[in-house]
C-alpha cells in the first residue's frame, strides 16, 4: 500500500490524503465481488487494481492536474477533499457496519513445526512482494518507468526531451492507486473494515512512507516492516491500544532528524 503512495509522491510531489480511502474502496469492491458474484478476493484483486487505476487516472486528470504547480498546501487540501468525499460516499453506500470478506483460504492454516501460519496472510505477503518487485522492474527496466522517474526527477527536463508529462503523471497516479486497490482486496479477508478505516489507513501509510523515505520503493517496504514491528512490540509490552503510540513517536523522531526518511534522498 505504501508502495503506491510513495510512487505518487515520488513522481509528482503530490500528497495523496485519499490513499486510505482508495484502499477502502478496493476492499469494498472485493467485498461486493465476493458476496454478489462469488469471486474470491485473491482473484478479484486484479479487478480492484484495474478499477482503482481508473479512479486514480480520473482524479489525476480531473483534479490534481489543474493544480500541479500550485503550492503544496493546496494539493494537501484538494486531496483532503477527495478523501472526505470517498470516505463518506462509502459510508452512504455501505453503511457504518464493519464488513469482512470470507475466503476459503482465510480459514486455512499450515502447521510448520511449532508454528501455525495463516495461509491467507502468507498469500497476501507473497503477492505484496511480487507486486513490489513487479513495480520495481517496471520503474527501472521499462521505457515508461524510466519516463516516470525522469518526470519525478526533473519536470522541465522531461518536458524538454518531449515526454508527455501529463500522461505520465496520470499513469503514475493510476498505478499508485492500482497498488492500493490490489492491497485493499488482498487484506480484505484478513482485516475487517468499515468506511472510517480509510483515515486510519492513510495515517498509517504516511507513517510508513515518511519513515521509509518518500519516493523510495525499498524504503516503503522497510518502513512498512518497521512500523508493524514497532506496533507489535508495543502491543506485546504495553497495551494493544497503545501500539500506535510507537509508530507516531517514531514518525516524529524521523520527521525531526531525517525528514527525507531512512532511505530517501534529501530533497532541496
Amino acid at each position, binding site marked *: 500500500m505504501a508502495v503506491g503512495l510513495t510512487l505518487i509522491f515520488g513522481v509528482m510531489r503530490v*500528497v495523496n490524503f485519499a490513499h486510505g480511502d482508495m484502499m477502502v474502496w478496493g476492499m469494498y469492491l472485493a467485498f461486493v465481488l465476493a458476496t454478489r458474484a462469488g469471486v474470491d478476493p485473491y482473484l478479484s484483486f486484479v479487478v480492484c487494481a484495474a478499477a482503482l487505476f481508473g479512479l486514480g487516472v480520473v482524479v489525476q486528470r480531473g*483534479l490534481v492536474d*489543474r*493544480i500541479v504547480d*500550485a*503550492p*503544496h*498546501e*493546496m494539493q*494537501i*487540501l*484538494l486531496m*483532503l*477533499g*477527495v*478523501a*472526505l*468525499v*470517498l*470516505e*463518506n*460516499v462509502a*459510508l*452512504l453506500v455501505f*453503511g*457504518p457496519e464493519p464488513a469482512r470478506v470470507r475466503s476459503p483460504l482465510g480459514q486455512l492454516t499450515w502447521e510448520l513445526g511449532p508454528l501455525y501460519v495463516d495461509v491467507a496472510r502468507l498469500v497476501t505477503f507473497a503477492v505484496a512482494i511480487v507486486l513490489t518487485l513487479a513495480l520495481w522492474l517496471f520503474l527501472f527496466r521499462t521505457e515508461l518507468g524510466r519516463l516516470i522517474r525522469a518526470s519525478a526527477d526533473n519536470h522541465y527536463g522531461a518536458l524538454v526531451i518531449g515526454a508527455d508529462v501529463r500522461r505520465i503523471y496520470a499513469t503514475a497516479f493510476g498505478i499508485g492507486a492500482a497498488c492500493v486497490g490490489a492491497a485493499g482486496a488482498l487484506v480484505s479477508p484478513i482485516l475487517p473494515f468499515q*468506511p472510517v478505516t480509510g*483515515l486510519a489507513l492513510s*495515517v498509517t501509510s*504516511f507513517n510508513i512512507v*515518511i519513515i521509509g523515505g518518500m519516493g523510495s520503493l525499498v524504503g516503503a517496504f522497510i518502513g512498512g516492516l518497521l512500523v508493524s514491528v514497532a506496533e507489535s512490540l508495543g502491543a506485546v509490552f504495553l*497495551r494493544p*491500544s*497503545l501500539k*500506535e*503510540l510507537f509508530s*507516531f*513517536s517514531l*514518525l*516524529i523522531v524521523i*520527521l*525531526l*532528524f531525517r*525528514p527525507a526518511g531512512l532511505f530517501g534522498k534529501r530533497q532541496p
Partner: protein
Amino acid sequence: MKALAAAGAVAVLLALPLVLSGYAITIFILIFFYAYLAQAWNILGGYAGQLSAGHAAFVGIGGYTSALLFERGVTPWFGMFVGAALAAGLGAVIGYLGFRFGLRGFYFVLLTVAFAEICRILASNVEAVGGAIGLYITFTGDPRHFQFRDPRAYYYIALALMLLATGVAALLERRRLGIYLTAIREDETACEALGVDTFKYKMLAMVVSSFLTGLAGTFYAFQNFSLQPGAVFGIPLSVEILIRPIIGGAGTLLGPVLGSFILTPLAEVSRQYFGQGGLHGAHLVVYGVLLVAVVLFLPQGAYPFLRRLFQRGAA
C-alpha cells in the same frame, strides 16, 4: 463606514436571541463556536501559512484540563485559562520542534497530526482522565461553574469568543506582526534574507493560536457536559477546524467567520435530514466537494471572491 457595518452586524447578532427559536439558537452557538476555532486556526494557518491539521489537540487539552480541575473544585472560569495555557505550551513544543527543524508544508502537517494522534491515544488509555469513555461533567446549572440553564447564555459567550478571536486577528493584521506573518507565508526565505526573525514570529502565531483554541475546549466541555477522546482529539475535529477558514478565505479577517456561517448550518441541516434517514456522512461529502471546488476555483476562499464581486457591483 466599515466600523458602522461592523457595529450594525454585532447589534443584530446581539438582538437575535430575542426572536430565535431554541433550535436556531443552538445552530448559532455552533456557528460562533466554529467561527472562533476557525479564526484561531487562521492566525497560524491563514496569516502565517503554517498548515496545522492537529488543532483538535488544543481543544482537547483545554477541555480536559478545565474538566479535571472542575472535578477537584476549581471553577472552569479559572480552569479555562489553565487549559489554554497548557494548550499553548503544547503549541510551543510543536512549534519549536517544527520550526527549529525547518519542517515546512506537508511535513509540518504530519507533525501536527502525529502530536494530536498521540494526545488522543494517551487520553483514551490513561484511566485517570477517563480512558476511552471520556469525562462526564456533573450538571449543576450554576453560572459560577460555567454552566447555564439558558442556552442564550452560551449564545452570548460563543459570540463573545468569536468577536474576541476576530479582534485579536484584526489587531494582528494592523501590527507589524501580522505583516511579518503574511510575508512569511508568501516567501519565508526572502523574509529571512531581510533579517526577519521568522522563527520568533511563527512561534508567536503558534502560541496565540493554540492558546485561543485551548479556551474553546472549556466551552466545548461545559456546553456538552462530556468529553470523548475521539471527539475532541480526533482528526475529524481538526478537519472541521481547518475547513472553515479555507473555504471562507484563509488569511483574511472575515473569511473564517464567513466560512463558519456557510458550513455550519449546512452541516447541521444535512446532519438533521440525512442523519434521520440513516445516511450519515452526507455533510462530509458536501465538505469534500466544497473543499475540492474551492481549491480548484477559488484558491483564495469565498470572502475575497465576494468582496471583489461587491466592489465590481459598486463601481
